[in-house]
């Protein structure tokens, strides 16, 4: 199967799930039921940024599905794969938004789910100044708990913001690591669709700091490609849905590094079998250059630990 076929299949799967979920939600709540994420001025930020349209109720979602379907062209060209990636991301956003109906709190400690605008504004300045030199999006389960913890720690020590999706969240917890926005390790959620909450960060950064007009998808993709130093680490096994999400990440300019044997695309889709080299491979792929002055002290030292809270005992 060609890489594009895998992307298209993943996109079709997610679209089917989304369509069912939206229909079920409308059957349950009616088309006028309000939907949205808490603490954001950007409605469903990804959909808003790409199309310029705000989704306010379930009925709007039905219309959005038609718009998303129109992105799902099936020519054998990268543009079609990119747009399928974007369509997959938008579907994920709809699915995630449905979880928040009626003020529900679908995510519990340690997972964050949707991140409020305030968090993005707070992270925005260090991102622009380079204090946060990159954003790592880690997906799936590492081959072992030790490798998971070592990888996350390596990024943390470089001041990189780490977001976690799927099995690695449990692995990090098992290793006894502290997580949270204050230490720049943010577990998003266990479902693959929760990855949209970090995409939402990049997209809102473009809207807030990049002055990108909502609906100008080309400008959005150019801004994220040039200005948001994010990258994805996706652990094997990769299913078509993850690959379809990956196409969306690559469309935004974020390289994907994986330990699964798959197609390779220079600077974009890189196979690195050795997880201990994920860090170096990722930074080079995203052209992130960090100069570290090694201070020989017995504890970890990085700006990531600035917000750490020391509790009694």
């Amino acid at each position, binding site marked *: 199967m*060609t*890489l*594009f076929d895998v992307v298209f299949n993943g996109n079709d799967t997610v679209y089917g799930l989304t369509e069912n979920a939206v229909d079920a939600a409308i059957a349950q709540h009616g088309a006028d039921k309000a939907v949205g994420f808490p603490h954001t001025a950007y409605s469903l930020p990804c959909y808003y940024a790409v199309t310029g349209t705000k989704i306010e109720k379930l009925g709007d979602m039905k219309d959005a599905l038609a718009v998303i379907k129109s992105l799902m062209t099936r020519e*054998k*060209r*990268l*543009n079609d*794969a*990119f747009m399928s990636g974007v369509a997959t991301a938008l579907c994920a956003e709809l699915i995630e938004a449905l979880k928040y109906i009626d003020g529900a709190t679908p995510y519990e400690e340690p997972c964050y789910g949707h991140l409020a605008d305030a968090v993005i504004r707070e992270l925005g300045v260090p991102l622009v100044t380079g204090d946060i030199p990159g954003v790592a999006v880690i997906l799936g389960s590492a081959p072992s708990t030790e490798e998971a913890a070592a990888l996350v720690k390596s990024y943390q020590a470089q001041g990189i913001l780490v977001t976690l999706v799927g099995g690695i969240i449990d692995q990090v917890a098992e290793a006894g690591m502290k997580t949270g926005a204050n230490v720049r390790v943010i577990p998003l959620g266990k479902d693959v669709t929760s990855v949209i909450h970090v995409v939402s960060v990049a997209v809102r950064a473009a809207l807030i700091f990049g002055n990108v007009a909502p609906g100008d998808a080309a400008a959005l993709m150019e801004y994220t490609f040039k200005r948001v130093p994010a990258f994805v680490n996706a652990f094997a096994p990769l299913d078509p849905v993850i690959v379809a999400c990956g196409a969306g990440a690559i469309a935004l300019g974020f390289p994907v590094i994986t330990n699964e044997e798959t*197609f*390779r*695309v*220079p*600077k*974009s*889709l*890189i*196979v*690195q079998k050795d997880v201990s*080299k994920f860090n*170096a*491979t990722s930074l*080079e*792929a995203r052209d992130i250059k960090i100069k570290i002055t090694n201070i020989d002290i017995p504890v970890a030292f990085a700006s990531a630990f600035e917000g750490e809270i020391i509790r009694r005992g």
Partner: protein
Amino acid sequence: MGNFKLTTVEEMEAATNKLLETGAKVGADAWQYRVKNQTPHCKFGEQGICCRICSMGPCRITPKAPRGICGCDAHGIVGRNFLKFTAGGAATHSDHGREICHTLHCASPDGAYKIKDEAKLLKLAKEFGVETEGRDIYEIAHETAEAGLMEYGKPFGYQKFTERMPASQRDRLLENEMLPRAIDREVSSSLHMAHMGCSSLPEALVKQSVRCGMGDGWGGSMMGTEFSDVLFGTPKPIDTEANLGVMVAENVNIVVHGHDPSLSEMICEYADDPEMIAYAKEMGAKGITVSGVCCTSNEVAMRRGIPMAGNFLQQENVVLTGACEAIVVDVQCIFPALGPLSKCFHTKFITTSPIAQMPDSEFIRFSAETAAENAKLIVKTAIENFKNRKPELVYIPDMKQKATVGYSVEAIVKVLDGVTNSQVDETGTTKPLLECITSGVIRGAVAMVGCNNPKIRPDYAHIELMKKLIANDIIVIASGCSAQAAAKAGLMDKEAKNICGAGLKRVCELADIPPVLHMGSCVDISRMMNLAAELSKDSGIPIYQLPVVGCAPEWMSEKAVSIGNYVVGTGIDTFLGVDPYVAGSDQMAALLTDGLRKWTGAAYTVEKDIDKLVDLMIERIEEKREALGI
């Protein structure tokens, strides 16, 4: 995105029409008028069924006279004509390659010609089995040049450079008696076969056509390219400009036209000389501008960033600007019309090679031994001619585009190294390009080559085909007049990424390249053959299975047919926009468009409808992808 805008064919034609108005004032002739005088062309010639190889003829084939006097049928006549056409082209490139070998043999540390790329020389020396350990570099150069010269007439064995081919292709050619032996032998064998009473079997004539072409591509042309790199440096990406607007009204304009860089390199060298520039100022000019036409232009653009004034059918336009002090030519594709035309202006038409002598020209015989003084005299002659300019006739169209050129195989591999990841990839290979192709980010590659031909609206096919290919994520490599058409249009400006499909655009951004890569002159199509061989070796896929095709949409010369034959011989499907005079024989047409495939893995496609031609190429590339399962 920025101010980037392609120059259209309409704009170029408007500029040409304005120049023709200048010409009309002084009674100048032009190819546009001569085409009218020659139309309609003889149908027998067009179909290849006119034979005049003995004095029993001329014979021609008609329904009433299906055989010539000797009894040869249409298939034999068309086949022999095709073979002789090929031999002419192969002889031309090969003699060019031979001259370069001689120039290398003349190189010396204190002479006009020096070794600029020692690493490449050492690599070639190794290939030819020349001892390099502890020896003087010039001694190595002379012996390597001699080894190269032996390739032209060696009595036994095959062309050395064919060992660069993947075994899958070389063995195939060997088995079918299509692997080239000595270069000159293939040319004279071809002429022998085409003599009255020799071969008239189409299969044999087609096979020899390919073998003769292969002696060019993997012999003469490759020798020309490789040794030019040794002498003048292997091209690296460099910025330049293209189209007539590169000529500067206030300067002495010297236009180099032809093919062999031994001449043009020396002219450029002396035009840069402070003494010459001072002399130009003394004569009332602000400086000296050297620009180029045709392949010699490609050579100096690739290595020195010398601007490109125009391609084949623009050669008369250069003189029509009224601002050309000298058009200096050597060999091949030079209109004899330049002689009478230059007489209408102050322009000096300077011929330099005993191979190409023409009436109404000033002949300054150029040779490798006396290159420095020859070049100096030519530059001086041009400078002294500045005062003879007729200001009322000067009109230089304000039209030029930026171009990044200089993509030799070595430069392409270096670009590809730039997108590798040091944690996972090896460098020095074509693998990043293969990965882009395998994943589908780039669908394939098209080598666009060839001439202009008045039968096709000049440059239209080159430019329109390239635009559609890059919009479909197909990367284009170009050489010769095709490359110059691209440069004039703006397709070699890195900003042209914005008219590409998403895949090629991303590749251009990450690798920092234009979507159409200038690989050089017509002998430099050998670079493309080396690239194809590398891609095959790095991927383990035979060349004929790679999603790569060649195209000569506006081809004109015998050289183009020789090139087509070696491209097909290398295993790359080749698309032509002009029929190679074979319509008179269904057997010959069938062999060229299909039968060849069983011997070389590739064949020709001829389609005179240019829009269909590009669609056929895209279809073929997708077919090849499907067959590979990518």
